[in-house]
């Protein structure tokens, strides 16, 4: 009797602590968001709209055009996504569905170790080896280009995509595959028509987290993309230098005087970055949600 009372008391203490931990995460995130808004929104008052959407970023002379930075982030991130998504999902399918058990137990941890590689190390490899190599291979003016950034960002987001997509594929019940194979489907048909659609929401989450990793990455892009604030025009922009929003914040935040216009604009870039990644997430979850509804409709 006595022990059960103390038991329930300790239970309530523990659940209280967990509750505080859970709420504190929400509180911290909203405090960060409030801070971001408070530091970034004065931009709209201090810099006029025309200048903010101008084509020139040169903050020490009060040129605050964000278009080249947004363009730079998009081109580097899209490049990385185009490379990382097929390779990532392909690797996940290989590890989860095709590889023999021994290979699989070796590959999965290996990929996860890759995810722990510090990005500054990849940056060094990028500007010392990859950039010169790409310049010679593709006859570019300089190897410090959006493409080099995309390749390295793909390498950074691959472990995330592979690891989560593999987990999702692994969670698909074996009976699905057995049923498909029993109906006479080939291995490939089973993977493409049964396993992958069944694991879809997990795979999309994997891709989203991978892209999130790429869009937020700073150190590597700063070292290898050349950081020239040029508005990307057409496909050739992938082979020229680009300046991303994250690299801009990282390169300039150390120098800037607190509460100056430049300081507010850097936080405003943070808001833009936040909105872009929010949009990506909302669109992705909307896609998953809509398709789930349709399948429910068919089933009912």
């Amino acid at each position, binding site marked *: 009797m006595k022990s059960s009372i103390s038991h329930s008391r300790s239970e309530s203490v523990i659940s209280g602590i967990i509750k505080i931990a859970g709420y504190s995460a929400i509180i911290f995130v909203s405090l960060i968001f409030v801070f971001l808004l408070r530091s970034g929104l004065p931009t709209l008052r201090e810099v006029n709209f025309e200048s903010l959407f101008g084509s020139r970023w040169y903050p020490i002379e009060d040129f605050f055009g964000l278009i080249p930075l947004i363009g730079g982030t998009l081109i580097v991130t899209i490049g990385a996504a185009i490379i990382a998504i097929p390779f990532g999902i392909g690797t996940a399918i290989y590890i989860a569905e095709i590889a023999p058990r021994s290979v699989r137990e070796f590959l999965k941890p290996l990929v996860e170790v890759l995810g722990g590689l510090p990005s500054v190390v990849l940056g060094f490899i990028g500007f010392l080896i990859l950039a010169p190599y790409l310049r010679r291979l593709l006859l570019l003016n*300089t190897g*410090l280009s959006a493409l080099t950034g995309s390749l390295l960002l793909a390498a950074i987001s691959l472990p995330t995509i592979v690891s989560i997509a593999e987990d999702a594929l692994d969670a698909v019940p074996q009976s699905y595959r057995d049923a498909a194979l029993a109906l006479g489907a080939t291995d490939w048909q089973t993977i493409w028509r049964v396993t992958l659609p069944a694991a879809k929401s997990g795979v999309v989450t994997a891709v989203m987290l991978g892209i999130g990793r790429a869009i937020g990455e700073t150190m590597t892009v700063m070292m290898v993309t050349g950081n020239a604030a040029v508005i990307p025009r057409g496909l050739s922009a992938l082979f020229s230098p680009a300046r991303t929003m994250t690299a801009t914040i990282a390169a300039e935040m150390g120098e800037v005087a607190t509460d100056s216009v430049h300081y507010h604009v850097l936080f405003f870039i943070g808001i833009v970055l936040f909105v872009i990644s929010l949009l990506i997430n909302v669109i992705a979850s909307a896609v998953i949600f809509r398709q789930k509804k349709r399948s429910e409709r068919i089933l009912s």
Partner: protein
Amino acid sequence: MIGNIISSMKIVNELFLFVLVFCLTACGYNSTISESNTSASEISYIENKGSDTIVNLALAWAEAYQKSHPNINISVTGGGSGTGISALINGTTDIANASRQIKPEEIDAIQETGVVPIEYVIARDAIAVIVHLDNPIDQLTLQQISDIYSGKINNWYEIGGEDRPIVRLSRETNSGTHVYFLEEVLRLGDKTNNTLFSPDTLLLPSSEVISAEIRDNPNAIGYDGLGYVTDDMKVVAVAIDNQHPPVIPSIDSVNDDTYPISRNLYMYTAGEPPEIMKNYLNWVMSQEAQSIVIDLGFVPLANNQ
């Protein structure tokens, strides 16, 4: 059954590890506290922060000075001239290193805290214009360099070189070297001139990235402190204009002021420094410390004084 035993062994192992780590960190924590208590009265700390151009020099000075003065601990960090002066304003550093002179608004900010900034010229520096070893260009005028960086000249053949596109390399805008190059070279020292870097100029975060690209890429032109130039790149001779002869940067040509892109390097303190810092700053200007300046590729003051 076997699985259960293995997993419970795992838990025991993890617990053991946890306790071990906890003990180690706890012990370590105790020992550092007692250490700092006993030594606080003996060791004085000097925080020294700022220009990335000066950081290696400041480190070499700090090391040499600590050897002869074991009771003084100087910690040197980089981050850029502006970062150093901001830190001086915030009171998070004792001495700020700067590769440019302090700006009026920064002086105001320090004066708001009730003291005046004090300036020390600690060495001289020249900015070298560098290209790939295979580039046939040997000399440029300031006007030509300005035209290259502002985007008026886009191919090496326009100034007598090979038919290659020019790739312009620069330090980031937070670097004192960048601002100095903008004012003295791109704008030729003319305050009313508002020429800007061409938007496709590569802004690189460190000297290391600039060096790597210059070594590898025959299209590239870059600039950096003379202290960072190595033998595997070509230093271009610079002429003030067509009437003056081009000059290669060297200790002599900087000290007799014939090389056009050279400047003073500074340290700043907020207000009159305490005895310990004053001794250090005096030592920095001494013959002994200035001989280290030469070793790092900068230009010593001693000859001028």
